[in-house]
């Protein structure tokens, strides 16, 4: 396996509310990422997927846990990390409407990271802006325009170009295409795949769309209310999803072909609502919606079990098979 560039251990991020309650956005997540791979992070609203991204880029400091990036622990640095680390980890945001300043030209927007992270002269930097734009498949004339003259997909590509400006090795893609139409999404996704090969980038690809994940990720991690449910290589995962939530999620995906219908292993009807992360239920966070729940699920948080090589699941159903005595 390739070199491990990122290791997240026991990551927690809590937000205290003015009324004394606590939002447990991320509550003990372990992940690792290898050079050149795409790790898909899938979850619905309140799963904490974006919070993980924001802790990784330094927008938040972790409440607890470690994030080892190329040997350095950056969990608690927040924005006080080295310039090199800032440049090495880049992010593309979800909303194409808000990731570029509407009052600044594309060139001005891309110049910001160039001015900070490179020693290029103004002229060279302007050239570099155009080179980056061409790299992501946009005509260089785009540089003089304002974001409003571009479509959503083009804006996202500009964001990608801006992220590439610092020559990163690790890029976080926070639902980069969820606001786009499929015909535009296709363009952006294909470009991202090309760039990954060209620059040997590692991607943390955050999305709620399992079908998309199937086509871009090497490995998939499923989050529910700030905790992991399942982690596996994409092929293994779609062949045999194990966690009851994962099965429900997969069953819920509307699909456009009959072949895909066969990908849904067992039809698990979706029930219940996602609880608020302010009131995460005790025990397994999913037990309120789980049809297989047992008394232990209400009390104890499940721990990680490796069911097949590289295929992990956090669920008491699988624990009991191995050690029947743990249910008390």
């Amino acid at each position, binding site marked *: 396996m390739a070199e491990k560039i990122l290791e997240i251990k026991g990551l927690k991020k809590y937000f205290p509310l003015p009324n004394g309650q606590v939002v447990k956005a991320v509550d003990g997540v372990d992940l690792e990422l290898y050079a050149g791979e795409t790790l898909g992070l899938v979850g619905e609203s309140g799963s904490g997927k974006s919070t993980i991204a924001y802790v990784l880029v330094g927008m938040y400091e972790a409440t607890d846990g470690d994030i080892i990036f190329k040997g350095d622990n950056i969990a608690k640095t927040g924005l006080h990390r080295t310039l090199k680390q800032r440049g090495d980890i880049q992010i593309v945001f979800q909303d194409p409407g808000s990731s570029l300043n509407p009052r600044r030209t594309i060139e001005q927007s891309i110049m910001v990271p160039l001015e900070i992270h490179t020693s290029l002269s103004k002229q060279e930097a302007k050239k570099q802006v155009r080179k980056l734009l061409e790299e992501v498949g946009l005509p260089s004339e785009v540089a003089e325009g304002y974001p409003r003259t571009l479509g959503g997909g083009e804006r996202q590509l500009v964001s990608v170009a801006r992220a590439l400006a610092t020559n990163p090795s690790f890029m976080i893609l926070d639902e980069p295409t969820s606001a786009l139409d499929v*015909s535009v999404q296709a363009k952006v996704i*294909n470009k991202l795949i090309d760039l990954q090969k060209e620059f040997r980038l590692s991607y943390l690809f955050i999305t709620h769309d399992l079908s998309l994940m199937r*086509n871009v990720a090497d490995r998939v991690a499923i989050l529910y209310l700030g905790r992991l449910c399942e982690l596996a290589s*994409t092929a293994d995962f779609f062949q045999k999803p194990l966690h009851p939530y994962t099965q429900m999620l997969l069953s819920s995906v*509307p699909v456009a072909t009959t072949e895909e219908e066969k990908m849904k292993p067992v039809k698990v009807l979706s029930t219940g*609502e996602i609880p608020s992360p302010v009131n995460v239920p005790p025990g397994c966070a999913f037990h309120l919606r789980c049809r297989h729940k047992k008394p232990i699920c209400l009390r104890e948080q499940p721990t990680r079990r490796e069911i097949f090589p590289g295929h992990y699941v956090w669920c008491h159903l699988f624990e009991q098979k191995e050690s029947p005595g743990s249910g008390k």
Partner: protein
Amino acid sequence: MDNAQTDTILEIKDLSVSFDVYGSISHVLDGVSFRVNRGQRVGLVGESGCGKTTTLKAILNVLPPNAILNKGEILFEGHNVFTMVDRQLAEMRRTGAGMIFQDPSSALNPVFSIKQQFMAALKYAFPPNTPPKELYEIAVKALEDVMMPDPERIMNSFPYQLSGGMRQRVCIAMTIAAGRKLVLADEPGTSLDVTIQDQIMRLIDRLVQENDLSVIMVAHSLGVIREFTSYVNIMYAGTLVEGGKTRDVFENPRHPYTIALMACVPKLTGEGIAEGIPGRVPDYTAPPTGCRYFPRCPYAQEICRAKKPQPVEIDPGHWVSCYLANEVS
């Protein structure tokens, strides 16, 4: 479904609608025609801004004031909604057709309780002398019908106190409760989480079956359309490009746009994603003459630019608006 063919509940004929946006005219809908039979589930698929919602709003005649009806008519049970007198129009809205909106958080008035909104809607849908208590019971029953726990409490809630999924259930209950015959569903699950969307779609599916309703389901998700509808219309930039039984269209798409669109959808089977469609959606203030898709179409020819293609039936019940319908596949 085929034997009900003769009984049409809704027919849209050559509908063209423009919008006046600060003095420049956007020609959005251009010659949209389709029909919905009683008990039929018709899908309307297209990407954002292609005019799906405008079509639905036109059916209820609730287009915004800057909309201009250029031509066309919409016959609901044989009566043109654009020429109906106020009383007929109100009657049609109260008991004929109802709409479920894409974003349930903006479809409910934030400063009125569910009860106030629900009762107002029911009050005019039922005979004027119906006692409020009876209306209240109808509302509670409708909320139970959409699987809302504790409907009495929901009635006294304000929209901000409910989750997105619950708000959408309330909207569905309001649409179904008065016994309407045609439901216009405008992407009812899009703004919700996948597992919640699944619940909402199954709920609509059950209600439609139980109450024998006709539906127009608008969506940009091909999966939703395939799973829910029996007949589908594909819309591109304000024009219908292809239509037919859902199975036929999905298994054998014939319009270059439909083919490209389907190739772009990421599949669970994971064979990668097509390159996408080159170019952009046209500028509606100066849309292409002829076929609106020709600037992006790999097969485009001179005639596509010159003249708008008319629908051609290529298989029974499956039509395509394309000069090359028989060559492309």
